[in-house]
């Protein structure tokens, strides 16, 4: 049944467009593709945007990262954290309880108060954290069920505009999640409420590997 429908749909589409000539290369691209900000201002903008989303932002030098991670986790008031399978070992500091995601069940992940992941990119213009769910970012589920998400973003991963992000990854990822602030809804009287189903708390550490 569907095979016939496939053919008949494609036939009608073809006959509807047979007189058309339109080349992809001719699509006008007059919009801003490359940012103009210096590194310091770019990071500042990223920080401002994240703060607008009520995310928590701290910056640190690379050697301080393990210590800052633990501090931020303890600060969150939670105790059990899940981490992607291949996060650097020195991220998994003492003082909190870790669960490494070696195919944990939904229930096991759900029981964790928070999650720690790396990121693939940050887009300053929109305050967006990009996850491609590689080995240090983890399966999609671990950054979804826990209520608190601590994301480690390198300053060198931050671009200014969305087009710059796409230019950085000519080979598109199989999975991607773009996070711009904690989950939110405005469905009731347009009142913005933070935290519906995803993590209600987003905390970002910007590692100043650019200095």
């Amino acid at each position: 049944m569907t095979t016939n429908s496939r053919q008949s749909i494609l036939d009608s589409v073809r006959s509807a467009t047979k007189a058309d000539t339109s080349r992809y290369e001719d699509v006008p691209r007059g919009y801003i593709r490359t940012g103009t900000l210096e590194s310091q201002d770019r990071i500042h903008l990223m920080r401002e945007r994240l703060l607008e989303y009520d995310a928590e932002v701290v910056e640190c030098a690379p050697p301080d990262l393990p210590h800052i991670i633990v501090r931020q986790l303890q600060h969150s008031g939670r105790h059990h954290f899940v981490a992607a399978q291949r996060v650097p070992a020195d991220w998994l500091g003492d003082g909190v309880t870790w669960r490494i995601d070696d195919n944990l069940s939904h229930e096991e992940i759900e029981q964790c108060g928070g999650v720690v992941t790396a990121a693939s990119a940050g887009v300053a213009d929109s305050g967006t954290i990009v996850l491609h769910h590689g080995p240090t970012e983890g399966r999609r589920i671990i950054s979804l069920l826990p209520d608190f998400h601590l994301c480690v973003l390198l300053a060198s991963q931050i671009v200014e505009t969305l087009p710059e992000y796409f230019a950085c990854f000519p080979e598109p990822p199989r999975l991607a999640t773009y996070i711009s602030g904690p989950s939110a809804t405005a469905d009731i009287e347009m009142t913005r409420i933070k935290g519906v189903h995803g993590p209600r708390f987003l905390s970002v550490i910007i590692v100043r590997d650019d200095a």
Partner: protein
Amino acid sequence: MTGPVMDPRIAPPFPEAAFPILQNTQLRKNVAHATDVIQAKRNHLVAEKKDWQELRTSAAAIRAHVLANLATYLEQFEKNCTAAGGVVHWAKDAAEARQIIIDILREEKASEVIKIKTMTSAEIQLNPALEAAGITASETDLAEIILQLGNEEPSHIVVPALHVNRQQVRDIFARRMGLPQLPDDPEALTAAARTYLRKKFLTVPTAISGANFLIADTGSVAIVESEGNGRMCLTLPKTLITLAGIEKVVPRFSDLEVLLQVLARSATGERLNPYNSLWAGVTPGDGPQNFHVVLLDNGRSEILARKVERQTLQCIRCAACLNTCPVYRQTGGHAYGSPYAGPIGAILTPQLEHMRHAQSLPYASSLCGACYEVCPVKINIPEVLIDLRAQVVDQERNESKRWTDPMYMGMKVANFAFSSAPRFRLAQWFGRVGLRFFTDKDGWIRKLPNLGSRWTLSRDLPGMPDQTFRQWWAEKEGGRSRETEPGKEAR
């Protein structure tokens, strides 16, 4: 009062449906508030974007390019999605799409599905079909839960429950979730929904989604959302079915750099919406291991074939045209009798119904052009509205209606009178004498009898002046005018 009918095949004509709504002050207040808030946010963020017009130009060009090459991009999407582990189905119409989905669910032995808000599912009236097949469909978007639990109908493409206020939401949740003590602040209501749904997310193994974009060069699907219910449905279940109109495809992954920017700003007034999810087929160990895409035509290829109407398919469902429309802002969505409301609904719904239903919708507009101005993909909605009106008139002219409908009879009489100068002058004289009986002292006509009352019901009419322009001119020129013998003036 009975509720609104949202099936274009049986819904009353727009003016009839709009009338009771215009008397519902609470609903109008809710709609006005919501559209004002979204518009203010949208306008602010559009103003800050220096390259907004360039983004619009590109977005429109990308969408137009896709439509011109739709078959190629659909095949490319199918090939790449299949290679990534997805199964692609094709549905000519709503009935076939429903059957495909029900067959998949039966094979999975599913008794319940969780759903991400999808306009296309409402278009094909999937939920009633699932119920009839013994499958419970649970909506997971907050607004959709409000509507589903409250037996309400959607009234907006992006914020479908904008006509319901917090007290009404509280009452619905208190009753249906068994929470009599629930307060009515949005925070508590949202938390109640979170708890209510968490269990469903963790236990129901099958989900249905729509798609914001299908990406041809990667075979992936993009879902744009705010709440995270989308991510839950895309990640936790074992089986995922995505239902998408064939026009949803875009050429390349990187085209999202344009489309995501214009969509978020136009839809919710955000620089980027909180969550965008992208996935290609099936990823071992991560998310659903059975993935189906149902590509739906349902009248779209017919729209594609029409020169003026084709642009309707460029739509990315941001609903900016609803928020700015002076008609929608008064009536809300229910009067449109279709899940697609507002200006885009006025052009899309009758076309999806092959111009056999919803013919009143192209008239539900003042043609002011505000919708065209805000549209992020530059759909010239007024142009399409006018073309559809012409189609409706052509249809009616071919029906026996032309012999009975007062409007058509009136047009025929007008045509007869206006096509000859003496007849026109005679008609003017009759009009002036006749209307004198209905003209108030101040020169305005406020109440006409019979058919004329349809005009004066909502607007006043200036009375006829004492003389015509020609008479005035002849007087002013002191009789020097050539207009002495009726019917002999220059043509």
